[in-house]
């Protein structure tokens, strides 16, 4: 492996780490507050991508306006899920998971009916790129993803640490009943977590739409990767999700570059199985959740 290839792979891995972190953090946030694994998370990502397909590639909106609308739209989808599925099934954790599988099928079908099963090509919002002196290339489109991920995740971190809502959210994640006894509204907190979690997946899909050619089934690979990340990182640990997203993206990108994509996927899944066997709470998870 030459130095140029190595550096290029590092750049590619950073991009992959950024959008995977956005998706995985959303998934962890939803699990932390509601105790539900959202199987439809990959389809929320897909919905974000299709928002850009419709608004930017179709209706000719400016790229970032389309991304912003996509963020809000997917956040609202999250609210719909919270209100329609997860709230009535709060006493039944497996029920929420199964209901989200039903929702996933519905979202997929809507995408198929609305846009067809073929891949959609989204033109890049800019052709500009940074070329480093040793020939390593970073397109602006990828740079956007990295910058937005860093900004949004930092904002989320500040929100969780510094604001009252953030404290309430973390309290709910630690112990829902104790939080309710302190006067924290569980419904409001769940809404907030679901909106943020879904919107993060949506913004990841919207930003990467020009890079990945959206299809209605693009959520599938994403959800598997997201599962690997949150299991290895420890379900419920936001920091773990970010760190493992970075770790996973680097391992995956390097193995793909050196060997091939299938081996990279198998390595990722084996890593997850190994963690599940040796330390089911994950590398950064503190305690077993019931």
């Amino acid at each position, binding site marked *: 492996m030459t130095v140029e290839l190595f550096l290029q792979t590092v750049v590619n891995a950073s991009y992959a780490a950024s959008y995977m972190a956005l998706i995985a953090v959303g998934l962890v946030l939803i699990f932390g507050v509601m105790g539900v*694994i959202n199987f439809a998370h990959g389809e929320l990502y897909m919905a974000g991508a299709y928002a850009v397909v419709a608004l930017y590639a179709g209706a000719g909106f400016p790229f970032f306006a389309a991304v912003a609308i996509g963020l809000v739209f997917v956040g609202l989808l999250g609210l719909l899920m919270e209100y*329609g*599925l997860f709230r*009535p*099934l709060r006493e*039944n*954790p*497996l*029920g929420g*998971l*199964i*209901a989200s*599988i*039903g*929702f*996933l*099928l*519905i979202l*997929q*079908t*809507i995408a*198929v*009916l609305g846009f067809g099963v073929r891949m959609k090509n989204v033109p890049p919002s800019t052709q500009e790129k940074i070329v480093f002196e040793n020939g390593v290339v970073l397109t602006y489109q990828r740079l956007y993803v990295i910058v937005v991920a860093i900004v949004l995740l930092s904002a989320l971190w500040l929100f969780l640490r510094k604001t009252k809502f953030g404290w309430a959210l973390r309290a709910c994640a630690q112990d829902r009943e104790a939080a309710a006894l302190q006067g924290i509204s569980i419904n409001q907190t769940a809404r907030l977590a679901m909106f943020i979690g879904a919107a993060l997946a949506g913004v990841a899909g919207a930003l990467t739409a020009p890079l990945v050619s959206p299809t209605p089934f693009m959520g*599938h690979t994403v959800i*598997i990767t997201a*599962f*690997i990340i949150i*299991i290895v990182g420890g379900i419920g640990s936001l920091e773990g999700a970010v760190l493992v997203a970075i770790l996973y993206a680097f391992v995956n990108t390097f193995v793909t570059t050196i060997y*091939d994509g*299938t081996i990279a*996927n*198998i390595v990722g*899944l*084996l890593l*997850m*199985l190994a963690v*599940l*066997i040796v330390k*089911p709470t994950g590398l950064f998870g503190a305690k077993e959740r019931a």
Partner: protein
Amino acid sequence: MPERTARNGLGWALGSILLLAALIALPHLLSHSQQEILVLLTINVLLVSSYRLLTLTGEWSLAHAVIMGIGAYASALISKQLGLPVPVSMLLGASTAALLAFLLSFPLLRMKGFYFLIGSFAAGEIIRLVWKWSEMTWLFGGPKGIKLIPPFPDIELLSLSVDFYDPVNYYYLCLIVVTLSLFILYRIERSRIGLTFHAIHWQDKLAQSVGVNTFRYRMLAFVISAFFAGLAGALYAHYVGTVNPNRFSVEDMVYVLIWAIVGGTATFYGPILGVIALTVLNEVVLRALDIDQMRPMLYGAILIVSILFLPKGLESLVPKIKGWLAGRRDRRVVAKRGAKTEQPAQ
């Protein structure tokens, strides 16, 4: 469980004979394409019933479709590459699925509940990736899978020759295999082993403390359910003639899950009810409306509606309907009596 009085036993026997007659007559009332669906439905009945045996121990696997695929791939390869007769390869295929489940149970059954769900999902995806892997194309055929799988051989019995290319005959073959399998599954559930599965589901610590090796029993449930899922896969492979990794994907697993959940898993007949109801709905309603693309949405909606409003599945309606019918009969009897003796019914 209702007591088996002589009258009750007679009713059971009569019911079984009627059901059997209906099942034998059924394909002759259907069109050719419906007969083909009937074959697949029969195979799916076995698939979902084998899945239920695993859920008895309280575990929900996401690898069951892939395990069915192992049976399909193994039986196809054994008959095609090694040239063994198809009935033998089917049993060997099912045994391969059971063997792989045995090996997988060492890592997977260390987990429970949600972790088991995700772990089985990962294990299934790894197996599917191996099927698709370009390095293994010489064996598994890559994403295109295995084609030209030998069909079930014709049977020459005296002057009668049975051609299994005909879906009606293959349906009868499946019916025999599936009925036999369901009988075995039912006996297992009603045996000591089955009661232990229930005990592990509801009171695993208590079961452990009275000396039940819970790991071994959970492994047993996993292996038995894998054997019958593999058998379903083998029946499928030699009927359709091709297998490929996408036939055993997460989507297919989701359908198994939907059948089991919509039907309910508390009774033996629940999942069977689910798969029959949804297949009939699918074939009759969707085909009539010609909206095949809507299928996943309909299934998703049914799944959500049933988990929200009918969390115990279709099977929970059966006692209600029975009770309603019985109640009506009782009321009628009471009303008649009341009219005769002029006494108000209580």
